[in-house]
Every structure is written in C-alpha cells, then in structure tokens.
C-alpha cells in the first residue's frame, strides 16, 4: 500500500484511489483535513470542473485537483499552503460574481456549501459591480423538484446523478461559457423514483424539494438517525425534527446498504407517521381508555386459555426485533404455535427498492415465524401485531386483539384495538433483506397514548394474569 503525506502527516492508503477518495476512505475529509469541493461526490463519477479541490503536490509545478489525482507512493500533499488558499479564494470570488447573495431568503441557508465555503474562503467584499446573470426562478423540473437557476454553480452533480444512478438522464447543461444552463432534456421532466436525491446533492440552493421548501429553517431542526421502513432494503435515514414533528427524511450514508441515496417513496413516508393513525383504543366497538381496552384484551386471553381454545398469533414485518421477540415469548407462554406473518409485495429495481414492502420480514423469519397468507381458519382468539393481512383472512376467528399503528379494515373488525407507536416514536432494530440488523432511535413522542407492541403485550399479559 502506498504511503502518502497530507500536510506532513503520513498515511498508508489503498492503491488506485484519488486523493479525495483516500481522504474520504480514511474519514479525514472535513474531519481534520479540509479539501473543499463542489463537483465531487463520493458516489458519482468525477467531473473535475469546479476546481475548488486544488491541492499542492511537492514536485508538481501546477496545483492539482484532489478529486482526479491518483495517489502515488511518496506523494506529499499540502492542503493549507498559501497557493492553495489563494486558489480557493479565486474560485470562491469567481463563483460569487454571479451567485445572488440571497441567503436570507434562500431555502438552502444553513446547509449550503457555497455559504459555508464563502465564510471560510470568500472575499470580504464583492469587487464586481456588474449586474448578475438573469435567470429563471422557481422552475418546476417535475413533480418533486423546484429549480432556482440563478443559484446553480454548474457542478453537474444532478446531471451525473440522473445519468448514473436511475440512468434516466433527464438533465443536462446546455450552451457554453457563462451562458451555460442546467436544463431538462427537451420534452422530459425530472420524474424518476429517486428524483429527490438531486436536492440532497445540490451543493447550493438551486434544487430544492417541493415538499420541504420553505417549511422550516434547518437550524430549527435536528436530525435523528433512523431506518426507512418502506421496504426490506432498510435505507439509512436522518429524520429532521422540530417541535416534536418530523419535517423530512434525508438519506444517511451507509455504503453497505444505500450508499447515499433513498427512494422518493421512502423519503415521503415520513408523512405516514401523522396520517391515518389509530388514535384511540377501542373495545367491543366502542372507544375506551387504554387501561380499559387492555383489561378487556386480558379477559379475552384469559377466557381463551381457560376454555383451552385455540389462540393464534399474527406478527407484523413492520415490528421491531424486540417487539417480535416479546410476541414470540408470549405466544409460547400461551401455548400457541409460532406466529405467522405476511409481507406486502410490489415492484423492485436494481438500485435500492426491494419487492418486500416491509422492513423486518427477515426479523420475523429469524424468530421462527411462518410466512403465510392463508385463511386463519377456526380460532377463539387472534393476537395480531400490525396490519399486513386483509380482514377476510380472519373470517372464522371469534375474537381479535389488535395492536397497531394505523386504521385498517381489521381495526374496525377487531374486538380490541390498541394504538401502537410507530418506529419514529420508539427505539428498536430491524433486520434487512441482507440480514443486517440496524437500530434506530425515537425521533418524536407520540401525540396520543400509544405504546410499543412489546409494552402493550406485557400489559395484556399482566391483565390476563400470565407471569
């Protein structure tokens, strides 16, 4: 492995990588070593056009771009020399002659790379008095993305994203020189299942999502690590929250799962936390307090046990491993067979989206649960977590105790229905399609009385007098 020195500190680095990749591999980028960059993105091809990442290499007369210079044994790189800083200042000054200084009204303020780097390397006062380039405002590129052209610094990250990840190629740069413009391919619009990632990778406020735009200033939010629950990929996400509310999901980098992307469907699923929820407990068709509903559920369990009736368990591939394990243990204590579960299925693609539309089918399988969509048949009591089976499957079941997050045909039919916390309202872990166990932590508090499935099960067991 080649040895290189960065600012006189030696590192052993993998071969065949560029300086910027190596810094990224070592976790040094923005974390001890500062090599500002716009066009480079760890998951896209190298463009080498913004020219911000220039570094000085001993023995090489000209400054070189770190994003396209392969490391070589003995290379001595300087990222803080006067020449490097002067070059950065030059790039920043040139970028700012046409970029509007509208940070106060720009939705990217607070997470804009131009703002950040201007703070570090910018000129104190503009030396140009020329009018800035006129451009189109708030252009809809498609159903999800809005484009403010005057802020675009032509890094072409969005262009490369569309060409290289979804491979749809909706975007391109037309014209030359300072008339270069980001444009849609004639007759197309930016509408692919991953379109909203372009807003994440746009280093400035040129591309924003229609969903999040002008909702809240990012400095009022904080980001909590979580895992998307919309398919078995388990993309790593950040949930931006403020005032006990989730405002958006962002991809969180995990090279083993989702690189740095998420699909639009997963991104927008944050809304599911606040819509269609099962908000109040019900018992025998009437709203009840949580305590009363738990009591009624306990009675049903006790009665079924005493009558040596048949008890079946139905698990949910949306439940966390801890909740599933608690369910398995309770069913064992009740002398019931292993829980069954069913996974909703849909389309998959070669990028991220998996056919299994639930985050924890692998967890269900690992805990010995049995996958089935068959009729449950005759039973005295079904204990049900979640909502992945249609109500018809329960045709011959006398009583249903349901612990669930959302309203469904089944919640209307259940003898007892107890609201559960969504994954955003509790901590836990999912096992994804590749067997990776990924934990998540609570992002918000529930606004209704709701418990995790394991807590609700424990309460029911106690009410039924089971140790």
């Amino acid at each position, binding site marked *: 492995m080649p040895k290189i020195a960065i600012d006189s500190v030696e590192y052993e680095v993998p071969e065949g990588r560029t300086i910027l990749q190596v810094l990224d591999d070592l976790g040094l980028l923005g974390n001890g070593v500062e090599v500002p960059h716009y066009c480079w993105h760890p998951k896209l091809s190298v463009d080498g056009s913004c020219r911000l990442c220039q570094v000085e290499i001993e023995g090489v007369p000209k400054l070189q771009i770190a994003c396209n210079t392969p490391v070589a044994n003995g290379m001595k790189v300087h990222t803080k020399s006067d020449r490097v800083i002067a070059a950065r200042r030059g790039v920043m000054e*040139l970028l700012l002659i046409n970029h509007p200084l509208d940070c106060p009204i720009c939705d990217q303020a607070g997470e804009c790379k131009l703002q950040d780097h201007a703070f570090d390397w910018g000129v104190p006062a503009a030396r140009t008095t020329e009018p800035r380039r006129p451009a189109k405002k708030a252009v809809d590129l498609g159903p999800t993305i809005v484009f403010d052209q005057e802020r675009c610094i032509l890094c072409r990250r969005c262009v490369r994203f569309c060409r290289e990840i979804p491979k749809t190629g909706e975007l391109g740069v037309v014209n030359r020189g300072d008339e270069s413009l980001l444009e849609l391919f004639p007759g197309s619009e930016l509408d692919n299942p991953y379109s909203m990632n372009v807003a994440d990778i746009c280093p400035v406020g040129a591309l924003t999502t229609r969903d999040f735009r002008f909702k809240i200033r990012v400095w009022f939010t904080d980001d909590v690590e979580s895992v998307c629950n919309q398919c078995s990929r388990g993309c790593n996400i950040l949930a931006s929250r403020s005032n006990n509310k989730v405002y958006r999901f962002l991809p969180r980098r995990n090279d083993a799962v989702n690189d740095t992307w998420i699909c639009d469907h997963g991104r927008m699923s944050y809304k599911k936390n606040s819509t269609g929820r099962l908000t109040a407990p019900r018992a025998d068709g009437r709203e009840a307090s949580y305590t009363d509903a738990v009591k009624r559920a306990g009675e049903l369990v006790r009665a079924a046990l005493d009558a040596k009736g048949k008890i079946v368990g139905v698990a949910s591939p949306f439940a966390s491993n801890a909740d599933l394990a608690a369910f398995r243990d309770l069913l064992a204590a009740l002398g019931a067979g292993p829980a069954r579960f069913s996974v909703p299925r849909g389309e998959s693609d070669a990028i991220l989206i998996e056919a299994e539309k639930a985050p924890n089918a692998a967890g269900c399988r690992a805990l010995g649960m049995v996958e089935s969509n068959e009729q449950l048949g005759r039973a005295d009591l079904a204990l049900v977590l979640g909502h992945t089976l249609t109500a018809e499957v329960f045709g011959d079941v006398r009583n249903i105790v349901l612990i669930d997050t959302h309203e469904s045909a089944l919640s209307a039919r259940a003898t007892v229905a107890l609201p559960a916390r969504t994954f955003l309202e509790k901590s836990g872990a999912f096992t994804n399609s590749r067997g990776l166990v990924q934990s998540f932590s609570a992002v918000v508090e529930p606004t209704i009385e709701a418990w995790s499935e394991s807590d609700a099960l424990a309460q029911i067991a106690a009410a039924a007098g089971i140790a």
Partner: protein
Amino acid sequence: MKNYLSEHYGDDSFQTLAGYEAKGGFAGLRKALAQTPEQVVEIVKASGLRGRGGAGFATGLKWSFMPKTNERMKVIVVNGDESEPGSFKDRMIMERGPFEVLEGIIIGAWAMGAQRAYIYVRGEYTRAIRTLEAAVKELYGKKRLGKSTFGVKGFDLDIVVHSGAGAYICGEETGLLESLEGKKGQPRKKPPFPAQHGAFGLPTTVNNIETFAHVPFILDRGVEWFKSRGTEKSPGTTLFGVSGHVERPGLFELPLGTPLREVLGHAGGVRGGRRLKGVMPGGLSMPVLPPSELEVPMAEEFLSQRGTHLGTGGVMVMDESVCMVRVATVVSYFFRDESCGQCTQCREGTAWVHKLCQKIERGRASDADLALLSDVPKLMEGQTICAFADAAAWPIQGLLRHFRDDFEAHLREQKCPFPESFEL
C-alpha cells in the same frame, strides 16, 4: 515563399494521386515501411519535430507514449480543426497538399500500430474536406488503404474524414475527442490521457495537420536534412500565416527562427507605410509583442523569453491606428463566447474580463476596473481542465503589459482616443 512543404502548392495536379507520385510522393512512406515501427518512432524523435498545433510538444516522444501491445485497436486523430483565430495554414495544407498529410498519417500509423485515423476538419472548411475525401477515396480505389495498406500484410489502416461544426474548443485535443464521439465538445479531465483512453476509449494520439505533413519529408530526406532548417530546438519550417495590417497578407513557409522582421517583410511590411503598433505572433491567444521586439527569432524558445509563444504561427499585425482596448474587447468577447463553461475560473472569468474590457472601452470605467482587469486573468491561469483559460488570460495580460497607456487614456478621456481604429 515556398519550401519543401509548399513546394508544389499551386500546381493542381499535386492534389491527385498521380500528380503527387509524379512529384516523388510516398518516397518517405516506402522508406518507413522498410523499417520497424520502433525505428520510425526513433527517427521522428531524432528529428526534433515539434507539434505544430500550438503547444509545440515533441512529436516522436508523443508517439512513444502509445501502448506497444495490440490488445486494443489504436487510433490516430488528426487535428484539422484550426480554430485559433489568425491561423489558416492547416487549411492550405489540406487543400493543396492532402497527400502529404495522408502520407504522414500512414507513416504514423505504421510507427504506432494504429488501425484507424480520424481527420477532424473544421466544418466550415468545405473545400479542405472535399479535397481530403477525394484523396482518401483515390487511395482506397488503388487498394492502398484498408486491408494490407500499401500492400503490407497485417498493416490494415482505415482513414475517416470527419467534419466538425466549428467551435474553438473542439480544437483542444480532448474536446475534439468528445466531439468526434458525438458529444458536446468539452475537454476531458486528465488523467486518463489519450494514449490510454482516447477516442472511443481506445489508445489515441492526436497531432496537428501540419505535424503529419512534415513526417514524410523527414523519413525521405533524413534527420540531418530536417535539422539543417530551423533552430536547434525547433527544427524545420512552418507556414507563417500573416494577417492584419500588412501589404500582402498570406502564408509563407519559412524556417523556424526566422526573425519577425523578415516574416513581416515577406508580407510586404505594414500597410500604407504606417507605423507598426503590435504583433500577435502565434494566433489570438498569444501575448502581443511591441515593435521593439521585431528582431525576435520566430521559434518557441526565443518567444517564450519575451513572454509570448509561437502558438500556431498565425502572425497578426496591427498598425498605429489600432486601439489596444478594442483589441482586448474583441479578444475577450471571443473567449467569453467560446469557453465550454465547465471550469469555474474559465466560465466566470472570461465573462468578467469581457465586461471589464467593454466598460473601459466605452470610457465608463474607474481605476478599480483597470486594477481588476490585471487581477482577474491571474485567477484564471494554470488551474483549469484545459489550456483555454490560459489562452484567454494571456492576450489580455500581454496587452496590459505593453499598452497600458491605451487603457489609461480611456479612463482619463472617458472615451476611445483612437478614432481610426476598427469598428466594434
């Protein structure tokens, strides 16, 4: 002035295969085919031939960068884009001496093991394109191209004439490759270099039209003969294209190192007995020389000592009537318009420089604007994907270096003090 390259220019039969052979054509190729490819590369190296496309890189050395193995097809790309304003030599060579170019290409293909050559010609050069196409067709007709080129078993060379669409940046070698592949003409970052990953991803060598045209003569008449012309570091002749305020603009084939005064003399000197104001020695991107430099030998090693370059040998002459601020405005307009727009420094810098020139030219500028005009080109130089940003910065720096008075006069008088200068 004629010399070996242009000896038969004007004789129309020289553009036909029969006429070319009657004048001794293909003697160089025959001598090349009698040697190994490695030997041919060594001869070109020993000749000291430097590329005539503007950068002056050693041709033999460039040829030696090509991979020696034959795992992948190797490609020669011939740069006939000739997009540097002030240059028109390649056009003349293509129109008058097409077989010289083709012979040079075939020798290059033999030396580098190339199986295909693309001649990329500026789209506006319709006559050059027709002439080259006719010449290529004649060679195919005589079965001297394609399978067993010139009867040599295992030497299979195809030549394709490709018409560009007229963009300066498509003359830059990697911008040209993108354009050749049917994409937007914008230079590629390096590495990878063309010798590893060039046209269509294949190992590629790009050389200028004139560069190839010299090669047959070197092979035929020998390294010593070639080196007896020109200077030690820049052997051979070149076609100086003299334009602007001279009595007889035109092309003159002269040895490299010919003093500028003599080059101008061949063009009849400055028109109407006026005084010389400045000369751009190698096309629009090369810094201007003041009249005090008239004795400079026209070869890179001497010109670079004076802060300029030989470029393409397109000598642009300006007499005393010319306003150098106007020149700067026109030059900066050209570069602003032709920048491909990828690199921050070039995209933003060329436009800024042009706006400043315009402002000064119109007499609306302040001292601060003039200070900026000296500064902004410095931000652009030496930091971009291709040398275009340098090419845009240099002429402005040259004009300011030698003609600062003109700029200051505009600030002082708040108008152009040269009423007889060309119109904008």
